[in-house]
Each structure stands twice: as C-alpha cells, then as structure tokens.
C-alpha cells in the first residue's frame, strides 16, 4: 500500500515538473502555432544557470529567478530576431527552434562539461514529511504545491485578466483577434517570454530532483510533446491533466518495470490518437 | 418513382453555436439543372461542402443516387459519380494542363494504386486527356504549366477535369466568378455543352447566365431554404425580393 502512495506522490511530483515545462510549451503552441523544439533546452539551460548561480553563492530562490529571467531574455531575443522573421512559416520556425536546441544543448556541455550535477536543495525544504509510517521528501511536496499554484495562477491569468482574454482570443482565431485591434506581435513576445521563463525556472526547480545533465533536454522535450498530444492543443486544463497522467504513468512504470518505463509512454499516445485525436480537452485538431 | 440523384433531408451544420446550414431538405431528380441562389453567408457553399463530403453534417442525411453517403468521405462520393468545382480554384499549378487532366482521369481508375509503372507511358490516358482539353478549347495550352495560364483558362480547365470523370452529378461553385466578359462566354458555352443526362447543381451570382441555365431555383438565406420553384415562380415570389432587398 505504501508503495502505491509513495509512487503516486512521485508521479505527482514528476507530473508537476512536467506541467511547469509543458504549460509554457502549450501556451506558445496554442497561441503562436510554434512548436518550440528548444523548450527542453531552455529547461536544461535554466537549470545550469541556476546551478552556477548557486555555486556563486546565491540562494536557491534567487537562483530560480535568475534561471527564469535569463531564459526569458534569451526567449525574447530568439522570438524577436529569428522567429518573427519566419512569420507565417510554421514549419520553418520548427526547424529553426530545432537548430537552436542543438546549439544550446551542445553549448551547455561545452561550458558545464558532461558530468551530471545535482542541484543543491534549499535547506528550508530538506528532509522528509512523516505521517504514520510514510516518509516523503518535503521538497517534492513543495514542487507539487508550486505546480498547483502555477495552474491556478495561469487559470486566473487566462480567465480573469485582460491579457488572458487577448491570449484566448488569439488562440481561438488569430486573424479575428488582429482584426479586433489586439497587438498580436506584442502578445506573442509576452507569451513567448512567459513560456521561456517557466521553462528556465522549471529547470532550476527540477534540479534537486532530476539533477542537471546533458540530455535532460532530450528527456523532457518529448514528454512535453506527449502532454500536448494527450491533453489537447490550446488547453491549460489539458496540459495540467496530461502532465499528471504522464507523471503517474512514468513513475509507476519506473518503479514496476524499470526497463519498460518508456514503452508504457506509448500507450496513452496510441489511445489518444486512435480514439480522440484532438486530445482530451483540445478543441482544434492538433 | 425514380431515385433522385441528390436527396438531402433535414441537413444542418453548426460551427460552434453558429448554424451555417439549418434543416435543409432537397430532392433533385436526374437531369435537372438546379440553381442555388442567396446572398453571401446564406450557407450555399457550406451546403455544397456537406454534399461533397468536405465535412460532416451536425444533423441530417445525404443520399446520392440512393446511397446514404452521410458518413462517407469525399473521395468515396466521387466514386459514386459526383464531381465538383470549387469557389477558389485549386489546381496543381506546377504541372501542365495535360498533367492535371490525367490526374483527374486516374482518380477513378485502379491504376492510381500502381507504384511501379511509369504514368507517362499510359498513352491512352494522355490521348484521352488531350481530347478532353480539345473539348473545352484548351488543347493548344496542353503542355503549358497551369501557373502560366489566365484565370479564365484555369476555370475552364477545372470544369474540364470535372467533366473528364464523366460524372452523373456535377456541383459547380460559382463557375463564372472573377471572369472577364469573353471568359464568361467561353464558360457559358461549356456549361451549355454538358450532356443533358448529367444533373447539375450550381451556385452562381451572375443572374443572366444562371437564370437562363436553371430549371429549378432554390433560394437560401441564413442557412435555410426560403423559396424553391421554377424560374418564373421564384422571380415572382415576394420572399425572393425580401431576401435580396431586405423588404
């Protein structure tokens, strides 16, 4: 019984990290129709930047801000100077983000070498939470909390703010939104900045759990893709539920049959694509 | 009673909450020339797309030659003997006119699944394509790429491709739109030459040509059929005036 609870919480924790990554990816794809293949690399680079910041003596919380901030700046520059030049060519934008992903990933190996580095956990959150005979790392509970808080904050942003209304309008019908006077180019930059910041900050947050290593980007990116395929395009709820589902599947899979953990990931993809290709909560076709 | 070529019952299509086509029913017997009239946004093209199979209706049933095709795909409906043209011309612009007609001919033949034999060697197909182009007066342009032809020529090519498949039901979506006076005459002649046993359903705004062409007219507005009848009946009906003039 304990096993199931612990693995369930692990799944929740991993799903939470995935949500922080996938939410940004989903926003960018939903609004801008850009499949940002650099998103995994942003996550990894953010983690490395946070790692270096902590190494330089900065505390964990500031490191999150630095990681998120650095990646958001990188994201804005890429969006403004490269992606915008390829407006109207979504396939070209995908290939460019792929190229950028390689550049970022290899640069990380160059700067930080190939050894995996654990990101030091903040002291305040070290240790385990104990109830009856169960013990679970406090930090992971914290991460779960962060994801739920993020989900709530994003929901609030999308449903209750003006910016959110503009984003939703853009996701529904970009041409119409433009026609109604929404400054879509500004909106794009804002959303790309937000998505990148989430990826970067998420990397730092994930550091104590996943470590930081070359290949972190290749591990996380396809999971973000599966989340969007599973949850549906342009749906925050889809990204949230999808992330948790993948988190659970991966966690139980890892624990029960470690060799086959990845094979299990096929299953939700096959089911969704066969039975409901728009995804669980998607409204447009992917 | 012979089976109508096209029979539509209670057809509706909603986009989100918006009813583009609302509870439309229609029976078109063999050989009839039917004209669909109505202001922009009346649902005429959506109706066409539903009949042709571009998307599924929200409600209702479509029967072509007696077969229930409501769940069938567009290419399956074509194999039953239906052909259509589109409001926006979509041809293989990097290829020649002849090539486009050959593709049209191959669409209904078994050979379309052949991954081995060189298509250029199928001389009878290419001869037939050339003959088709001759029928519409485009044989001189046979080897020219579509990108290098005029709009009127492309429209004629599009109709030629539809006719090449020897359809029994022909859907024409604004065949005269965007044409010059000369080009309109060419297309008009083409339409007159369509064999009488082919049922034609046409959307058109050019009143002179359309009214002369049609046996029966259906007037649509807001996705519904408002008036239906012979030319004289529809022209005399006060509701037709309402649809176009608002009173």
């Amino acid at each position: 019984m304990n096993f199931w609870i612990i693995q369930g919480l692990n799944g929740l924790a991993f799903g939470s990290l995935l949500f922080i990554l996938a939410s940004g990816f989903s926003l960018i794809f939903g609004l801008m129709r850009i499949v940002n293949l650099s998103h995994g690399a942003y996550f990894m680079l953010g983690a490395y930047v946070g790692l270096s910041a902590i190494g330089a003596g900065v505390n964990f919380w500031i490191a999150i801000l630095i990681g998120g901030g650095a990646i958001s700046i990188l994201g804005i520059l890429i969006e403004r100077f490269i992606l915008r030049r390829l407006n109207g060519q979504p396939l070209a934008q995908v290939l460019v983000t792929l190229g950028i992903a390689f550049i970022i990933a290899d640069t990380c190996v160059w700067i930080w070498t190939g050894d995996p580095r654990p990101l030091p956990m903040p002291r305040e959150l070290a240790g385990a939470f104990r109830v009856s005979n169960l013990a679970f790392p406090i930090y992971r509970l914290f991460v779960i909390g962060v994801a739920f808080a993020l989900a709530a904050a994003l929901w609030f942003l999308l449903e209750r703010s003006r910016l959110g209304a503009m984003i939703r309008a853009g996701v529904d019908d970009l041409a119409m939104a433009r026609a109604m006077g929404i400054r879509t180019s500004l909106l794009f930059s804002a959303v790309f900045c937000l998505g990148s910041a989430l990826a970067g900050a998420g990397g730092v947050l994930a550091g104590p759990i996943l470590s930081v290593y070359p290949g972190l980007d290749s591990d996380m990116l396809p999971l973000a893709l599966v989340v969007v395929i599973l949850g549906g395009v342009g749906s925050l709820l889809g990204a949230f539920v999808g992330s948790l589902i993948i988190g659970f599947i991966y966690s139980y899979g890892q624990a029960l049959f470690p060799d086959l953990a990845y094979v299990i990931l096929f299953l939700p993809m096959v089911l969704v694509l066969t039975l409901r290709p728009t995804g669980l909560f998607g409204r447009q076709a992917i | 009673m012979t089976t109508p070529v096209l029979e539509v019952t209670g057809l509706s299509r909603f986009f989100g909450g918006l009813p583009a086509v609302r509870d439309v029913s229609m029976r078109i017997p063999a050989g009839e020339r039917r004209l669909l009239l109505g202001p922009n946004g009346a649902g005429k093209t959506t109706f066409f797309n539903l009949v042709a199979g571009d998307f599924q209706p929200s409600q209702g049933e479509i029967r072509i030659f007696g077969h229930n095709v409501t769940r069938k795909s567009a290419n399956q409906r074509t194999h039953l003997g239906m052909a259509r043209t589109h409001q926006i011309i979509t041809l293989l612009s990097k290829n020649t006119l002849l090539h486009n007609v050959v593709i049209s001919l191959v669409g209904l033949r078994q050979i379309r699944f052949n991954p081995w034999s060189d298509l250029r060697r199928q001389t009878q197909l290419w001869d037939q394509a050339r003959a088709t182009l001759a029928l519409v007066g485009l044989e001189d342009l046979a080897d020219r790429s579509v990108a290098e032809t005029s709009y009127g020529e492309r429209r004629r090519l599009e109709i030629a491709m539809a006719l090449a498949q020897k359809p029994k039901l022909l859907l024409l979506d604004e065949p005269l739109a965007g044409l010059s006076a000369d080009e309109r005459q060419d297309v008009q002649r083409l339409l007159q030459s369509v064999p009488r046993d082919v049922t034609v359903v046409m959307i058109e705004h050019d009143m002179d040509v359309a009214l002369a062409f049609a046996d029966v007219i259906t007037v649509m507005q807001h996705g519904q059929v408002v008036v239906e009848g012979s030319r004289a009946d529809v022209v005399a009906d006060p509701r037709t005036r309402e649809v176009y003039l608002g009173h």
Partner: protein
Amino acid sequence: MRAPSFNLLSSLTAIAALLALPWLVTSDYYVNIASQVVIAAILALSLNLLIGFGGMISLGHAAYLGVAAYLSIYLTAHAGFGHLAGALIAIGATTGLAMLFGYLALRASGLGFLMITLALGQILWGVAYRWASLTGGDNGLGGLKRPHPFGFNLMDPAVFYYFALAFLGIALWCIARFVQSALGQSLQGTRDQPRRMRALGYNVWLIQWLSFVFAGFWGAVAGLLYAYYHQFVSPQTLHLTTSAETLLMVIAGGSGTLLGPMVGAALVVILKNVVSAYITRWLILLGVIFVVIVLFMPEGLVPGITRWVRSLSSRPRADKAADTPSVVKEPAQ
C-alpha cells in the same frame, strides 16, 4: 512531370566515378566513408519520399534505421538466426512498425504530424536506452559479423562498398519508378492540393500511409546496411539528432529531386567526419547549419547553387527560388 534534372553525360560520368571509386581513392579510410555516404543516401532518399514528394515533415525517421539495425544484430548475433533470416525479419518487422507509426502520425497533419513522429522516435530511443537487458542500454548492441553473400568477403572495404552501392542502385531505381508511377504522382498531388485530390476521388490518407510505409521500408534497408557496416548499434542511432541529421541531408541537398538527398547525404557525412577531427562540438555546427539554411536558403544548397550557376550562363531561366519546392514550404490545408 519534369525530365531528369541532369543530362545523360553527367549521369554516366557520375556512375562511372562511383563504380571506379575504390581504384580512384587509395585509402581504405575514404572507401569506408564512401560506404557511409551510400548508406546515408538510401536513408535520405527514403525520408525525401515523405518530405519532398509527400510534403510530410517527419522528425522521427531514424526509428526505421535504428530498429532494423537493432533487430538484425539481435537476431543474428544474439538469437542464433542466420544472416538472411535475420535480415528479412528485421526489415519486415521494421516495415510493420512503419505501418503502426504511420497510422498514428497521420491522425494529424503538418505540425501535429511532426510532433507525433518526434515523440514516437524519442520514445523508441528511451526504450533502447532503458531496456538494457534487451538492447544493451547505453552500451549498445554489437557482435554482428558481416555476411558472406555468394562468398564475397564483406570485410574488405571495397567489396562492402560495392555491396552497399548495389543496394543504393536498387533503392534509387525503385524510388524513381515510384515517383513516376500513378501512386507517386498522386502522392505529389496530395502534397500540393489535398482537397482537390479528394474531390477527384483519391483516398489521400491511404496514399500518405502507403508512402509512409514505403519510406519506412527503405529506411529499414538502410538500417540493415548500417548494422553490417558498423557491426554495432547504440541508442544514439534512434535519437532525435540522427533524425535531424537525416532531415538536414534532405534539405541541404534539396527536396524536390532524387539527386538532392544523395548529394546532401555526401555533404553531411563528409562534413561530420572532417569536422570531428578538428572540433568536438558537432551539434553546435549542426544547429547553426539548420538555422542558416532555414533563414537564408530554404530551397536547399543544391537547387540554390544550381540556380546560381545557371544564372551565370547567358540564357535567362524561368525557375527562381520561388518555383523550386522548398522543404519549408507550408503544406496546403
């Protein structure tokens, strides 16, 4: 349909050069590179079926290379099958995988198709990486001895080169026939005007799926040769990087022709080998090349240079960059 883009004389010269290569080039090292180029050319040709002729951008094509390689090595070196049986089963099973992946990927189109192929490919990589008891994990799978078809010693680099070249010849012939066939022409029609093709009676999904399977088959053939050449396979063969390199071969060489991907394969393989001698950061270079090509030369290097060379001769030609098919051309909806 266009006539071949190079004339008879240059193609005969090229064929002669390819056949004479082991004598023209004395070092075994270069003959081996030529074998790598030939294997990559088959893979690039197969991907180009999807990209250039089908308009379907796949970022998971390495799956067929890798799975065929893993299967043939596993069956022949670890499960006691003979070379021929192992080869046939490997290619057959990989083609079966292409049938499944094609079905899944074609539940979407355009960007969705791309995402699904990427995800499927990376999941496969993850499987190879983690299922260590079957695949050897990060250590890879090796131990395959090259076969001796009809007594030929494939361990001799020149003999292996001809062996691979023969497969390239067959692949090129089959793919060229496919492209000119009714099915191949319908595929190109669905790339340009899917809606029109449907209205003309074509089952667009079926055409795309059949082409996907055909492309997967030739990818599997390349995978078999890859296994024989390296006698070893690792998860890296299934990684997104490998799919991206294959994509680069197609777009560097130009996706509208049969020659383009082969030239692209040569460029990428030679570049990779040359560069590895000097710098360890191949991925950065790969990324930069991607970005540069997409931004400045979307029709590919070969068409771009051909266009430039033609413009130097006195006859002005009608074809411009706008007319040549670009891999980054957005597919018709």
